[in-house]
């Protein structure tokens, strides 16, 4: 029999902070729980029926002061919890800038994961220790939820949008990965493992290791190919054209829409632009872009999004041919 411990093993930078808050709440609630239960028992015995005569004890002063006290004190305690909770929550919600991105696609009843370098995994996730990891997640069918108890993280994996989750593992080892959101008949079998490795082992693993069947092109490359194959290039030239706007450098920028509103370009916006182009029309263009819904699966969509994200305008690095072409044209 393993020794009893309240929490599962903790193996991420955030786990300690969550447990700290948790312990505070256990302390507060045990105190109040025992206080109230204790008072119920104590008062019941102290004031048990004595006779049928009128109670003669001095009644508890029906004082305003008492009522104000037991309004203010719980309120203050709850605000302490709020403040503490909010500060941890902010940390959990913001992935660090140097986080390595991994793509997750959930489906009934398995996890499909892909590293930025292209390596794919099913129901397994290998990550290096001490490196922040950002997961960009979506689902092919119903809602799932990515849950690693040892990291104290959980986020729903929702079809039709990208949710993100980040963690930094602190201990080498193998941890359980579950689907926490009930997702149909075999929900309880949607199980996986997270392997946390030394960075050097991880690099070795990533570069192929033994079985290299899982190796495939990096999402950016897949996206580049799709961009050509699906005919996106005909309208979206790097320098822009009458047919469609240039997509170079749009990620993270603010777009002006024909409707007069503005929108920040993020993964969800790019996804929507491909699947439902009529939803938000860029100012100055005609709504001529056809929908690609049904022609691309979730992984291809992620690859396209990844490719568009990689298009950088004035670029020293030479990864993006389009960016270069655009720059060359401008100079010429």
């Amino acid at each position, binding site marked *: 029999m393993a020794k009893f411990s309240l929490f599962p093993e903790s193996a991420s930078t955030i786990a300690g902070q969550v447990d700290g808050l948790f312990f505070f709440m256990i302390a507060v609630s045990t105190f109040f729980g025992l206080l109230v239960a204790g008072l119920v028992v104590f008062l019941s015995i102290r004031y048990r029926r004595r006779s049928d005569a009128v109670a003669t004890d001095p009644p508890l002063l029906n004082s305003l002061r008492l009522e104000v006290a037991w309004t203010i004190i719980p309120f203050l305690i709850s605000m302490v919890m709020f403040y503490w909770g909010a500060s941890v929550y902010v940390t959990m919600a913001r992935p660090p800038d140097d986080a390595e991105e991994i793509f997750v696609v959930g489906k009934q009843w398995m996890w499909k994961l892909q590293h930025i370098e292209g390596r794919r995994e099913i129901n397994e996730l290998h990550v290096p220790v001490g490196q922040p990891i950002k997961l960009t997640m979506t689902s092919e069918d119903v809602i799932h939820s990515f849950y690693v108890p040892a990291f104290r993280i959980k986020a729903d994996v929702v079809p039709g949008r990208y949710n993100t989750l980040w963690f930094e593992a602190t201990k080498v080892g193998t941890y359980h990965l579950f689907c926490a959101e*009930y997702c149909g*008949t075999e929900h309880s079998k949607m199980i996986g493992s997270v392997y946390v490795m030394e960075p050097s082992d991880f690099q070795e693993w990533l570069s192929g290791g033994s079985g290299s069947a899982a190796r495939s092109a990096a999402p950016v490359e897949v996206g580049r190919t799709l961009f050509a194959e699906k005919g996106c290039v005909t309208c979206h030239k790097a320098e822009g054209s009458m047919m469609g706007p240039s997509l170079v450098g749009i990620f993270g920028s603010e777009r002006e829409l024909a409707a007069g509103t503005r929108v920040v370009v993020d993964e969800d916006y790019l996804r929507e632009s491909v699947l439902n182009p009529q939803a938000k029309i860029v100012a100055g263009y005609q709504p001529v872009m056809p929908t690609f819904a049904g022609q691309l699966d979730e992984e291809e969509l992620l690859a396209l999004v990844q490719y568009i994200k990689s298009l950088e305008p004035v670029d020293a690095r030479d990864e993006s041919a389009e960016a270069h072409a655009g720059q060359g044209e401008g100079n010429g």
Partner: protein
Amino acid sequence: MSEAAAAHAHDEHHHEGGFVSTYLFSLDHKMIGKQFLLLSLFMMIIGGLLALMVRWQLAYPEQPVPGLAWVPEPYLYDGIIPPETYNMLFTMHATIMIFFVVIPILVGAFGNFLIPLMIGTKDMAFPILNMLSFWIAAFAGGLLISSFFVEGGAAAGGWTAYAPLSAAEVYTGVGLGQDLWIISLVVLGISSMMGSINYITTIINMRAPGMTMFRLPLVVWSLFITAILLLLALPELTAAMAMLLFDRRFGTAFFLPEHGGEPILWQHLFWFFGHPEVYILILPGMGIASEILSVFSRKPIFGYRAMAMAMIAIAFLGWVVWGHHMFQSGMNPTMGMAFMTTTMVIAVPSAIKTFNWLGTLWGGNIHFTTPMLHALAFVSMFVIGGLSGIYMAATPVDIFIHDTYFIVGHIHYVVFGGSIFAIFGGIAYWFPKMYGRMMNETLGKIHFFGTLLFFNITFFPMHIIGIGGHMRRIYNPEQYEFLEPLLHWNEIMTIGSIGLGIFQIVFAVNFFWSMFAGEKATQNPWHANTLEWEAPTPPPHGNFLVTPTVYRGPYEYSVPGEKEDWLPQARPGSGVAAAH
């Protein structure tokens, strides 16, 4: 008023008119209340048996359920529960318990029986509407039960029916069963709407002379606020249900992302109804506990106005906290922060009420009757449920324990520890007025102590395994290696639940035995102040021989200088002056 009077007069002609008009299509609010009570207790047996099957599977996964070898495939395989059936079991258990047990008893049974008696009037404002509301609820219950027997079986999308799982047959393999689930809840909603309109109208218009709003017993306040919440929440749920049905059957895509729908919209719609709903489940319980605590402490309720105000505050705040069910759905952290604040704040009125109940006990002269024991348990158990709610209000903690057994523990401490204990207390307390006889105290106490003990054995460990990472709604916990050290709890909880079930038999025996053979009750066996005890036992049609006039608030117990320790609302004159 005149309508009610007319209906009532009409009814009186046929009073002796026979079984059908007395017991089936009665227009008498008391009979309708009792009909709701019996229907819901019957549904409770079904819901409870489903829960025992769920518990069996969790403790002894994929072993045959004793005594169920006869159940045909594909429901069970030689008594072994397959995952499809397991998912139906927990879905239907929760749906039945919440919608067909707790709400109909609190609102349908107690609301109907108590409101006219406690405000001092002859009947509800709309007796025919009232009668229809019962039969519509019974029809909805029939629809829900029938869904077990259609092809594909009953709904298996969870009681929260998250889309897209619930929005297309392919995802669960359940077809007509899920449709019937939706239709049944829409029909039930119609019944509740009728009831709510009736309660609100009755309480506003038909109070006895002298019965001001701030002389209303707290249980009437709680039912009044509950009726308002129901009236505002149900249309929204009905709309959401209709959208879900349209997605399933008529090609719309409100919640289906592949056609541009938004699955998260369902969660917003469901919880915008769902959170007020959980207060609908507890407010009447708080009201019942307040009555009982005051009567059996022989003391005025501590802070009457604060108690009413706290309920009003809960009713307002209850509309702005729904997002706490969705912290991990991909919510914008700014919204998450807002919902965290409101959820923290809504715990404050609950804390106020708890301390006021304790203040009521202070200096009292406590009579340990069965109703009182249940009310004391209500306070202690509700506090545990309220405190576990705070954990979940803190987003980082909730992200960890969401969708684990911790949540299941929370639900059961508030709904069973809270509402169900209040219900048992309320039944024992008002039984003499309902059936003219007392319930047996010995059996009542055996039932109480057994229930309290086994309730805690069944539900407390859920917090522990939840923190340990045991998820809810999983078919077979033995598949998870890291849960191994926790699995013995599952067995303990299952044994607890069997004990819990067995002690409910004591209640059933007591209930029916007392109904026919209990000690005859006097008009006011508990020496209580409120108006229902002014009516004869059991009250005839029309309730009061003369309409009572109200002279004071409901909780004047142990007034100094009085020779008795109670001072009924309807007793004229200043009691103190008369005594000297």
